[in-house]
């Protein structure tokens, strides 16, 4: 059969990046997590103003630090380091899961996915462009929260050495870590990067699940279930043989940045693991998305 000479018009990867970027920014729900995180930071600051931290004083006294009031150890860095845990365990993963779910399954549900796929765009490139923006989004949420915490913390409580109780960060050792004031910003930067890398792995998992189901709600539920099951397993010390295989173990490695002596080797190993998980999840997402039928 003769070939009709169709033009060379098609959507390039840059067109797709622009397309996804505009959609992500134009959607109001994309901005809600920033508002929520902002409110959480304000709430944390208010709580830090009102709490007396007597239990912490007692713990620090046991560690022979001789603090007499909360002003001796509470500062912007202390606030930021201690408020990172809940957000990076719960809030930010939930926001990223929702964004990932909306990007593919949400669009499939709304019918806009097929509106894109009836055009000359590569399915693989479409998914990768979505991942790029989801990665940027994860990075933006992580650093927005962290920077806001540090700035508001410093504005309200000043700066100083960072004192952390080791057991809070699950390294299995009791005691207090003291990080000199000048070293703290670098530690936060490293923690932020490692936490963001963890969030990007979660983003790739969210995208994988989202590429497989046709309902955004199903995508959130499955992704969060996987994440919370891993967190639950991670909470049982008896299952420590399982830890190296759980991606949450490596996602939480940022906590080591707040130890006296940061185990750089462990951090590298975790980063390699996270990169592996990311590549596996993303490759699986692209492969399965290319192969699946779009019924929505």
């Amino acid at each position, binding site marked *: *059969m*003769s*070939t*009709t*000479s*169709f*033009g*060379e*018009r*098609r*959507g390039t990867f840059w*067109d*797709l990046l*622009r*397309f996804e970027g*505009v*959609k992500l920014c*134009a*959607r*109001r729900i994309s901005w809600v997590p920033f508002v929520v995180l902002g409110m959480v930071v304000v709430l944390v600051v208010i709580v830090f103003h009102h709490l007396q931290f007597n239990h912490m004083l007692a713990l620090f006294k046991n560690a022979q630090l001789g603090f007499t009031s909360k002003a001796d150890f509470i500062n912007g860095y202390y606030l930021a380091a201690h408020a990172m845990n809940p957000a990076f365990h719960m809030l930010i993963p939930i926001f990223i899961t929702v964004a990932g779910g909306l990007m593919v399954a949400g669009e499939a549900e*709304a*019918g*806009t996915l*097929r*509106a*894109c*796929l*009836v*055009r*000359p*765009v*590569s399915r693989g490139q479409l998914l990768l462009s979505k991942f790029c923006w989801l990665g940027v989004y994860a990075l933006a949420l992580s650093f927005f929260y962290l920077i806001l915490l540090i700035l508001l913390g410093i504005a309200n409580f000043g700066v100083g050495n960072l004192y952390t109780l080791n057991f809070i960060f699950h390294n299995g050792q009791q005691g207090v870590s003291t990080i000199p004031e000048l070293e703290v910003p670098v530690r936060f930067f490293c923690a932020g990067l490692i936490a963001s890398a963890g969030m990007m792995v979660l983003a790739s998992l969210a995208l994988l699940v989202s590429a497989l189901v046709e309902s955004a709600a199903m995508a959130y539920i499955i992704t969060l279930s996987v994440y919370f099951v891993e967190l639950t397993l991670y909470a049982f010390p008896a299952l420590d043989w399982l830890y190296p295989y759980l991606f949450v173990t490596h996602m939480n490695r940022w906590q080591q940045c707040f130890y006296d002596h940061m185990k750089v080797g462990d951090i590298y190993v975790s980063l390699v693991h996270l990169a592996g998980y990311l590549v596996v999840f993303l490759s699986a997402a692209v492969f399965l998305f290319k*192969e699946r*039928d*779009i*019924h929505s």
Partner: protein
Amino acid sequence: MPEAGPLLQIEHLTKIFRRGWLRGPKDLCAVQDLSLTVPKGAVYGFLGPNGAGKSTTLRMALGLIHPTQGRVSIGGHDVACERLQALRRVGAFVESPSFYKYLPGRRNLELLSGLSGGASSEEIDGILERVGLQGRADDRVKVYSHGMRARLGLAACLLPCPELLILDEPTDGLDPHGIHEVRNLIRSLAADDGLTVFLSSHMLGEVENLCTHIAIIDHGRLIVEGELESLERQHRRWCLETTRATEAMGVLAERLGLDAASVPKRPNVLQLSLGGKPPEEIVAALSEGGVPIRSFSPEANWLDRLFLELTSTHEADHGQPKEVA
């Protein structure tokens, strides 16, 4: 008239949906060995009852669903192997046009056309004017009515410069005014711009009005395909009203070899197929046979009748052939 050569060719297309052990033991065969040829320049009506496999076929034609067997090619490019080349000059919507509701209509067009290489703001303005949305282009799609979304859907299909339009029930849900406008637009796109249009529809009158070719499918199988004129010649009946019906039946049988049937409750009316003969020949034969003619006119809604006959016959023949053990 359509030019020669197929623009869209569907060959032995089959789609079996595997249900898996969770959803029951039987697979579902949505489309079975379907072959269609859409010539360049044609307006091709794709008809079938609900669940006949129309949307599945359209989805396979657009690469949204992978066929179990068979091949679809657009402009000579195999959709399975060369999807990007095949879709470069295709404008399409399946089921219903969908948009990003939080964005204005114009922005939706800019973004979607960007995926096909982009369109200038002048081109977008021109298309918006053509579909009658220029006054509402900057409103968010969420405030659009159903009819406005359908028009925006057509506008999105027209950017940038398609050669083939694939439309799934383009007038579905529109008011009579909207239906008229969309039909006129499709007619003008085919006649003035030379586009090939492949549309599925339930509205047989619409297909009769617009299309040069039709295909009817049922239970995933092709029942009839061809040029509308030729099918009309073959299947359209004529109604003869005369005061001497019995005599007329005799004349038609003897002189022309045609079988005429009387219409129930209307003894003076006969229905007959012309068998390719021109109506003038029938009238002349009746006049020569001394049969008075009150009226001799083509059957209205012949396509509706044909559709109902063919699809119901097919159902009687095959029952429910969709499930595959």
